[in-house]
């Protein structure tokens, strides 16, 4: 996928944002629940910082405005599907306007764990109207790249069982009762999610990455892809050599506060 410059909005420009002044890069990691996105985001962040990039990482329901409210709503038993979709969209808008856009203005690499595509996929998996939710989330910025960590449901099941050891109510779509127990519901719901993401993969030019492999192999793969995005590079990074001459202190001195 070629890098798109400059950034622009899908449908509807956010009031007050001039996309021409967004100089950073927006990189999205998408994929179903339990596919290993969080691990990859952490690895990528570390690597990108080593390369000298300022990185903002962000993810669903982590915003200052609606994050807490979403968590509380999920603990109760009254969160309806449209309400949930809109609550997550509120959180996304808050993070887009108050975290992502300012970081892009400042030239950061923004790594986001999920994006509007997860909101859309969840809505579609719950039977909501595709055109409706695509337009609702149409104020999203078109990212420079979307990496879709793809796995099939069987792989997700084994990751959940071997990893966390238990199914999660919301990851199983139990609010919709796709099955009469959490396993059956998980399988049906995640199948719907994957189908919805597969459809979007074509339309939104995702780079599909096989997530059925070990994390380090996936990481190498992602690194290779990101290297092609023409991030600004630091030339001739000075190397810091360890010296034998000791001045009494161990390792590097902390810089003094001004």
């Amino acid at each position, binding site marked *: 996928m070629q890098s798109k410059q400059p950034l622009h909005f899908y449908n509807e420009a956010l009031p007050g944002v001039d996309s021409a002044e967004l100089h950073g890069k927006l990189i999205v990691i998408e994929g179903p629940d339990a596919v290993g996105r969080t691990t990859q985001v952490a690895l990528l962040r570390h690597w990108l910082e080593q390369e000298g990039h300022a990185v903002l990482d962000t993810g669903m329901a982590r915003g200052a405005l*609606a994050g807490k409210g979403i968590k509380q709503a999920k603990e109760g038993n009254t969160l309806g599907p449209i309400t949930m979709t809109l609550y997550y969209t*509120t959180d996304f808008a808050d993070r887009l306007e108050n975290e992502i856009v300012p970081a892009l203005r400042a030239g950061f690499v923004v790594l986001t764990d999920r994006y509007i595509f997860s909101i859309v996929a969840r809505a579609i998996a719950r039977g909501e109207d595709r055109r*409706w939710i695509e337009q609702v989330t149409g104020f999203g910025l078109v990212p420079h790249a979307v990496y879709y960590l793809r796995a099939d449901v069987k792989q997700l099941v084994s990751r959940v069982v071997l990893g966390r050891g238990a199914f999660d109510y919301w990851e199983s779509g139990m609010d919709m009762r796709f099955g009469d127990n959490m396993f059956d519901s998980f399988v049906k719901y995640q199948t719907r999610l994957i189908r919805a993401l597969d459809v979007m993969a074509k339309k939104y030019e995702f780079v599909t990455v096989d997530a059925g492999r070990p994390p380090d192999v996936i990481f190498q793969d992602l690194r290779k892809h990101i290297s092609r995005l023409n991030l600004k590079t630091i030339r001739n990074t000075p190397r810091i050599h360890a010296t034998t001459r000791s001045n009494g202190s161990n390792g590097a001195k902390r810089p003094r506060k001004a």
Partner: protein
Amino acid sequence: MVEGIDGSGKSTQISLLSHWLRSQGIAVAFSEWNSSPLVRETTRRGKRKEMFTPTTFSLIHATDFADRMERYVLPLMKAGAIVCADRYTYTAFARDVARGVSRRWVRNLYSFATRPNLSFYFRVPLDVAIGRILGGRDAIKYYEAGMDMGLSRDVEESFRIFQGRILDEYEAMAHEVGFHIIDATLSIEEQQKQMRDIVIQELGESLRNGVLRMAPGEVHAIETATALLQ
């Protein structure tokens, strides 16, 4: 469902109407704008810390609306109740657009909403409405006054400009929506009479047969109890 700018008197009128319907033995549910318990804390946080942008302000109110629809309005309507709503989607169409949100986007946002059977719009000149608001309470709140848009440093001035824009939006959609327009400068009693006449005229038959209502004996019991209280 009633609409109108702040100070148009719509809340008073819908409250009177719902009491009247209830006294006729009709099952009535009441839903107020921005009242979902699920969203309350988030809205409060956003307002207190002035965190809202036009987009998040619009979205949190849509979330609030969706919650009331899914959990309250739709099930009760299915059960045969009449739902009286103090403000509906048109509040968002007027207010969010006045804040700079795209007209098309906000209309799509609310496209899951049920179309109301009856829509009342309380038309009032800006100065009358502002006079009522300023006379009635001590402070206009930050977002109510549209202070987030930097229209003016003066709260009253900002409120006036913002409400003026909202009024323009209401007036622009009045025809398209098919509002029943009530002259909100008339006496409260006269406005209420007009509302009741329109309700009977428009919903008459379905009020008799199409809604959930108490048996005549129960109505009589309530009337007796009410009379005793007075």
